[in-house]
């Protein structure tokens, strides 16, 4: 189904500014100022940067969850309401605790107003299978491990069939082994979907392994420190991280992030 749809849109950020009024004092917190950044259609871009640099804010701005302070965000082909799917880091707080896995995966379709129960159930079943949760359809989120809860969130967003997928440190709170497994599976799933995906992380290794392209951001106000294409095409994690090109990149990014001001 997904493959027959129109290409996923490109996203252009033009002179994007975001400021927050700090509560209590008159200081204005500038997260980013005049940021220009483009994401191509069907591209998986990882955004890496120090914590608090505004990388999550970029996703929230694109997703329309927070208003812009300046500049503009456009989609190409232009669409006033592109379908956007969000995956959050804090899976426990992003799932509905009173809904079973099945109903959680149907959630996006339910919100959208897909009235037909069987249509929702079919979509849910397909993606529950894809993320490997078959057999857990009737479980409640609290009965699942962190990795499995994150799989529920992934299935939910895929069942919604978004044009753009925004992932905010989705594997940040998982243990190392689970994170590896999910990274590899995610690559496999996304390779078959050809969606525009923005994946925010502070894990350099993850950003280089997952991204078709990696954008390195500075401490706030966020500037683009580097913008790489993927160095090696292998999707096998062990091969990827033992390649010379990976190690060179890793050091490069590490140096870029370390040299930035650090008042965190």
């Amino acid at each position, binding site marked *: 189904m997904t493959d027959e749809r129109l290409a996923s849109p490109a996203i252009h950020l033009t002179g994007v500014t975001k400021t927050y009024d700090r509560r209590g004092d008159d200081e204005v917190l500038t997260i980013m100022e005049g940021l220009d950044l483009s994401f191509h259609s069907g591209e998986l871009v990882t955004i890496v940067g120090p914590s608090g640099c505004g990388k999550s804010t970029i996703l929230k701005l694109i*997703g*329309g*969850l927070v208003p812009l302070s300046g500049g503009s965000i456009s989609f190409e082909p232009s669409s006033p*309401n592109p*379908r*956007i*799917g*969000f995956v*959050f880091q*804090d899976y426990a*707080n*992003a*799932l*509905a*605790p*009173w*809904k*079973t896995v099945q109903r959680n995966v149907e*959630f*996006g379709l*339910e*919100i*959208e107003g897909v009235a037909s129960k069987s249509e929702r159930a079919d979509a849910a079943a397909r993606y529950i299978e894809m993320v490997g949760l078959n057999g857990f359809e009737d479980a*409640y989120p*609290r*009965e699942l491990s962190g990795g499995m809860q994150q799989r529920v969130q992934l299935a939910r967003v895929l069942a*919604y069939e978004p044009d753009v997928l925004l992932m905010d440190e989705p594997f940040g709170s998982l243990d190392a082994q689970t994170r590896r497994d999910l990274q590899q599976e995610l690559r496999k799933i996304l390779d078959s979907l050809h969606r525009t995906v923005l994946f925010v992380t502070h894990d350099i290794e993850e950003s280089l392994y997952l991204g078709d392209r990696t954008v390195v951001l500075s401490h706030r106000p966020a500037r683009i420190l580097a913008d790489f294409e993927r160095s090696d095409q292998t999707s096998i994690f062990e091969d990827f991280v033992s390649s010379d090109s990976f190690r060179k990149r890793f050091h490069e990014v590490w140096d870029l992030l370390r040299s930035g001001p650090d008042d965190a």
Partner: protein
Amino acid sequence: MSGQDKLGSAWIRGLKTILVLSVIFSLWEFVSRAEMVNPFLFPPPTQVFTDTLTAFTNPPYRSGEGLLFQIGKSVYRSITGWTIGVIAGVLFGIVAEWWNKPGSVAISVLEFLRPIPVILFLPVLVLIVGIGDLSRIIVIAWASFIFVSINTIFGVRTAKQSLLPDVVRSFGGSETLVLRQAVFGLAVPQIVAGARQAVGIALVLMVASELILSTDGIGWFILFMRRSLFPAQMYGAILIVGILGLIFGALFQRLEKRILRPYIR
């Protein structure tokens, strides 16, 4: 502990309770029959039982309808009042806390009215809406509303920390859908806690409201039996209030267990 053991210990506890109660009732029976106390004022439990049973359909001297009718009245008032209070409390709590700016004014007004003992509203209400069911229902509904709305407000505060409202918005959901599909569900454990407190208060107010300016209901029946010197029926009715409390509590617990199952590990 396995389910089997739990069931077993529940049975044993039940048996122990029955044992203790039978000891108490036997002592009471003996003390009364032996006329160690005035048997007219403290009739033996066997007499309380038979007289009360008779009163179900044949109430003593000029007391109008039977005890069964009075119980029905009281149960109707408490359940109706509780239900109205819970629904209103949930709606008010969610709306007032979610739209904080206008809501905070409403919450302040509530905080002002909250400490006034609810039963004081009754004489005023009787003047306004009359002596019938409505005044009692309003009193019970108001008290339930207070408990449920305050708890709902806390539930909504926890919902505000959640990402689920943003999830609903990211799927293109309106603010109404955010309330229905995220905030309400997240507030449910707190709402249930409030509703549980309201069950207790509804029972107390059911009886209390019928002690004042009333013509029927089990509270009125207890009062009337005392005035008319039918202590056996009075004791019987008091025991029935206790049994009603147990039944309400057990019914609510079943409901609560079903609702909260997904939330509790």
